Every structure is written in C-alpha cells, then in structure tokens.
C-alpha cells in the first residue's frame, strides 16, 4: 500500500505531465502529416523557436502570460511563411515525400545554428510563473506542472473541437480526404494547407513556451521530444488525432512506470521496440488517418 502511494502514484502523475507535453508535440506533427502528407522533420526546431520567442519577449519586459499568449500567433506567422515560401514550392512535384522530408530536415539544421548565432550556445531559462508545490496525501506536486497538465488538456480538447466540430475543421478534413474535390467545391485548398501547417507549428511553439520553465532553453532542445513524438504518431496512426492523444499518454506511462524496474537508459529502446512491433502488426498505426473513416 505504501509502495502504491509513495512510489507508483507519483510516477504515474509525473508520467502524465510528460505525456501532455508529448501529446502537444505529436498533435502538430500528426495534423501536418494527416493533411499535407508532409513529414515535418523541423517540428522539434519549431518547438525550440517557440521557447526562444518567449525568452525574447520576456527579456523585452513582458510577463510570462503575455509570452504564452503571443508566441503561438507569432509562430503561426512563421509557419504560414514556411509553408508558402518553402514547402509549397516542392509540394506538387512527383517526389513530394522525399523532397519535403529533405527540405524540412535541412531547415531544422539551419534553424538550430541560427538560434545558436542569435542567442549563443549556453542554456537559458525562463522562471516558472507559478511557484511552490501542492502537498496532496503526503505527495508533492509542483504547482506549475499541475498547471501545464490542466492547460495542456484544455488545448488538446480545443484542437479536437476545432477539427471535428467546426466548419473550419470540416474544410480541413475534406481537403485531407480529397484535395481535388474540395478545391472544386470552392475551398481555397492552398490556403487551408498553409493555415494547417501554421496551426501545427503554433502548437509546437506553444509546447516550447509551456515547457521552457521545466526543461530550460538551448539550441539543440528540438531533439528532445521530437523522437518520442514521431514514435507516438507512428504508433497512434499517421494523421490520427485520437491516436496521437492515446498513444502519447500510454507510451509515456509505460516509460515512466517501467523505469521503476528497468534501468532508465532502456526506456527509449523499449519505446522503439513497441514501435517496431506495431509497425509489423498494424503498419497503418492503431487509429485511422484524418479525414478517413
């Protein structure tokens, strides 16, 4: 009983806070893939840019909450420009998968070095806006992590509603299902594509700000969540929102709880092992793709 209370329970809750972070990253990734059929290798770097934008805003004297509110729209602008300026140029070529993969991969390398040039290689930090910890049943939970969990859950719910319960979301899903038919019905498909990419990038940026007080800010931070986010998207089903949420939460729980018994370095191999098994058993992932049955 003590073991359940003092060892397992905190592990589950710590895993949950990491899970929300992973889901935020995976959501942007899966939406971009589901609609544009583009594997965004630079997703982690957009997460890093988000954190650095917040660092710059806070250095300019704004409080954290303003940075949290302003960063996603700023990131959306960057995402929109990236899609219109770079991705759309190679989007209609026959070799779309390879070209966009290479393009976003190259972009990720450039971004990392540009961040280093502007902000330097040393780590930076944003102070958590909510201090202290809450004691519940003899367990400690930092208040800021509780906030991240709550806020993250709200963002995930909002994305769900936006995609599945609004006419905007219907347009996106229609474009994902049949680009040509949707275009002939008068939907500006190119704008929908760019806006969706911008939305995914804004989500990554939001994750960047939200997690900066916990994980600190440095140029190579983009690689942090992107590997696990990719595995979550592959396991959950490329382009599935439901899959990203469920796989994200389940996988981080598996990692967190398994680390009680196995050496922590094995938690990544465990994750990728699960990914390989899922790929062999259900190559399309656990859930269906956006816009498809």
């Amino acid at each position, binding site marked *: 009983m003590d073991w359940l209370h003092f060892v397992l329970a905190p592990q589950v809750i710590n895993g949950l806070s990491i899970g929300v972070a992973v889901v935020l990253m995976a959501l942007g990734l899966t939406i971009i893939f589901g609609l544009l059929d583009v594997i965004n290798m630079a997703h982690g770097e957009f997460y890093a840019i988000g954190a650095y934008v917040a660092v710059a805003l806070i250095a300019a004297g704004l409080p954290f909450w303003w940075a949290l509110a302003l960063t996603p729209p700023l990131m959306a602008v960057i995402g929109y420009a990236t899609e219109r300026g770079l991705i759309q140029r190679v989007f209609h070529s026959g070799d779309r998968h390879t070209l966009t993969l290479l393009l976003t991969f190259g972009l990720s390398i450039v971004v990392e070095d540009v961040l280093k040039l502007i902000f330097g290689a040393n780590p930076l930090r944003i102070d958590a806006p909510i201090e202290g*910890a809450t004691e519940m049943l003899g367990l400690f939970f930092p208040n800021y992590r509780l906030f991240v969990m709550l806020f993250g859950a709200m963002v995930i719910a909002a994305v769900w509603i936006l995609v599945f319960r609004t006419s905007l979301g219907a347009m996106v899903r229609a474009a994902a299902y049949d680009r040509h038919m949707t275009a002939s019905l008068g939907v500006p498909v190119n704008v929908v594509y760019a806006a969706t990419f911008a939305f995914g990038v804004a989500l990554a940026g939001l994750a960047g700000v939200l997690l900066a007080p916990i994980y600190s800010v440095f140029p190579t931070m983009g690689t942090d969540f992107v590997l696990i986010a990719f595995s979550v998207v592959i396991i959950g089903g490329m382009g599935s929102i439901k899959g990203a949420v469920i796989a994200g939460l389940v996988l981080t729980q598996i990692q967190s709880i398994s680390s009680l018994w196995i050496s922590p370095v094995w938690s990544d191999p465990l994750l990728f092992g699960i990914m390989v098994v899922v790929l062999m058993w259900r190559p399309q992932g656990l859930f269906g793709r956006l816009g498809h049955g």
Partner: protein
Amino acid sequence: MNRFALGTIAAALLALPMFASAQNAGPIRIGVVTPLTGTYAGIGAQVKFGLELALKEINASGGVMGRKLELIYEDEEANPAIAVQKAEKLFDVNKVDFLTGTVNSGATLAVGQVAERAGKLMATTVSFADSITADKCSPNVFRVNARAGMQSAALADWLAKTKPNASVFYLGPDYEMGRSTVAAFKTAAEGKGAKTVGEVFAPLGNKDYSPFFGQIRAAQPQVIYTSVAGNDTVRLFTQMAEFGIARNVQVVGASGTVTSQNLGAIGKAADGFVTGVGYAITIDTPENRKFVADFVSMNKDAPDLYGTDSYGVLYFYKAAVEKAKSTETDKVRTAMRGLQWKTPQGVKTLRAGDHQAMQDMYAVKVDGGRFEIVGKVAADAAIGPDLCTKF
C-alpha cells in the same frame, strides 16, 4: 614560361629543407587543437582566452630563449576523430613543436597517440579522466590540470569535515565519464566514512528527472552527489527545486557540473552546491588577483579553471624549454619530469612517474552566482597513487 614556373617551384621545393633547419631561429610553434564550435565551444573559448593572455605576456617579455611563441589553432569540434586529423595536420604541415588544447578525454587520449607517433609532446589543460595519467598514460602526454581523483579527494575531505558519516545518494549520467566520476567519488567518500543509500544513472541528455525523485525521497539521503553536466545540470537543478528535493539536503558534485557556462541558467537553484576543483577565481594571492584582472581586461570575461590552466600551460612549456635549453622532444621530456613552474594557483610540480601535475585543491561553494572557497587540501594529500606503468 611554363618551364620557368616549373623551375621556380623546383627551386622552392629544394629550399624547403633549408627553411626547416632555419626554423630553430624562428618562433616556437604550439599547435592548439580545441573545440571552437560545437557542444564544448564555451570551454574552447576559455582555452583560447587563457593561451592568448600568456602568449602576449611571454612574447612581450622576450619570448622563450630569445624565440617568440606562436599559436596555431585548429577546431576539433569536440570530436576525437576530427581532433586526430587536425593534430596530424599540425605536426605534418605546420611543424609545430608542441600541442595543447584538447578538451574531452577521448580527444586527449587519441591525440596523445598521434603525438607519440610524431615523436612530439602534448599537454592537456582540461581533460579530467584519471586514465590519461594512469592506466592509459603515455610518455608523450602531460596533464597540467587537476584530474578527477584529485577533485574527488578535495570534495570528500570537505564532506567528511562538515557532514561526518553522511548518507549519500548518487545520480550520474549514464556514460563512461559519468560512471567513473561517481565511482571515484564514492570510493573517496566511503573511505572517509560516508554511507551509500542509493544510486541511479540517467541517460545523457535526459529531459525529466522527476521519475527518479521518488527513489531519492525514499532513500532519505543527507547528501546528493551528481556528475551530470551542461544542459543536464540546468534541468536537474531546476526540477529538484521544483519538487523541493534539495530541501535540507546538501547537493555536491563533479567540477564540470556547475560551470560559468550554465550557472546563469541555473540561477539561484545552484546556491549551496559544493564541488572540488583545482582553481577558484577567489583564490586570494597577489598572483591570482593580477591574473584575474589582466584576463578580464583582455577578454571581457572572467577566467574559469579551463582558462587558468590553459594560461598556465604556456609557462609550463616555457619553463621546460628553458631548463632543457632545447625544443628536442627527449631533452624537453626529461626537463618536464619533476618540473616546478608558477601558475595563478601557485607553484605546480609535475610528477615524473605519471606526468600528472600536483597542486593544492579546493572545495568551492556556489553563493549568489560566485564560487567561494570553503576548504583546501594540500597537493600531496590530493594527488593519490601513481598508477602509470608505461614509463
């Protein structure tokens, strides 16, 4: 015309050996293989700062035996394979007399082998791994900075005095350096009465340490020892503060855990951290005060232990060449063994048996973004046994 050009080239080629022999009257060349870009660029910058200051001072006061010193830099990008290529280039193309600058221990060991093949001498000013001057020692490799074992000895001594028989929890990064520093400190601390209540190794570049906090809390340690470094330290310390893990617990660690590169990002979460080092900016001697002032005015940055030991290495080479009255490898090596030379930390002695510098060691505590000296161990108490059997 073509024939004329060929003739010129041939003449130039013929003249090359003449230049080579005439080199003795020219500058003494020291190759610097150091990371100017990449993960360790911050350390490489300190290495360069220290060397440049010493270079300016030595050349302004007449050089070494009437010859100027010249530094030739090569960027090793914190990659041992690249370090090897650059070291070979410096020996073969630039004909350097000595080498220095390597930062990570793998690069130092690899470049040491290059120096051995080239029949030249090198000295590291940064690498901590004990093996460099122990089981993997080389007759051509010298270390002028303190090694991990000496740092552990200073820290263990401070711990035994301030918290006798403390219970210690160990948290290290899961790779060679992380495990060996934990093992070294554990041996030193247990030798002075500390008890081990648990240990965990997290992957290098770990994001979140909170999954380990349950184990730490359950073990109820009085002291947490860690050897994480760089960005990992920022995360560990931030998250320990978040969860209140460090409350009523003394956090100690390796000298590379909290540095001038990450101290700013850790902020007040670093206060109270204690480590063992071979240099602190607050050493209160006229030599060190002058060194710090000159360093800051030249580089617009304060020296850390890497910058200080890199400054010291040029004086080490100077003293050795002047004692040997030559730059020939065998004569200089003989001169270096047992050599005493002045550094900002005081007089250092190079132990002949394993090429490890002996020096006083300090325990330092972070206080409001500064390292304050809280303990000192004499050179001969910190040095440990000579484990080198190769020469």
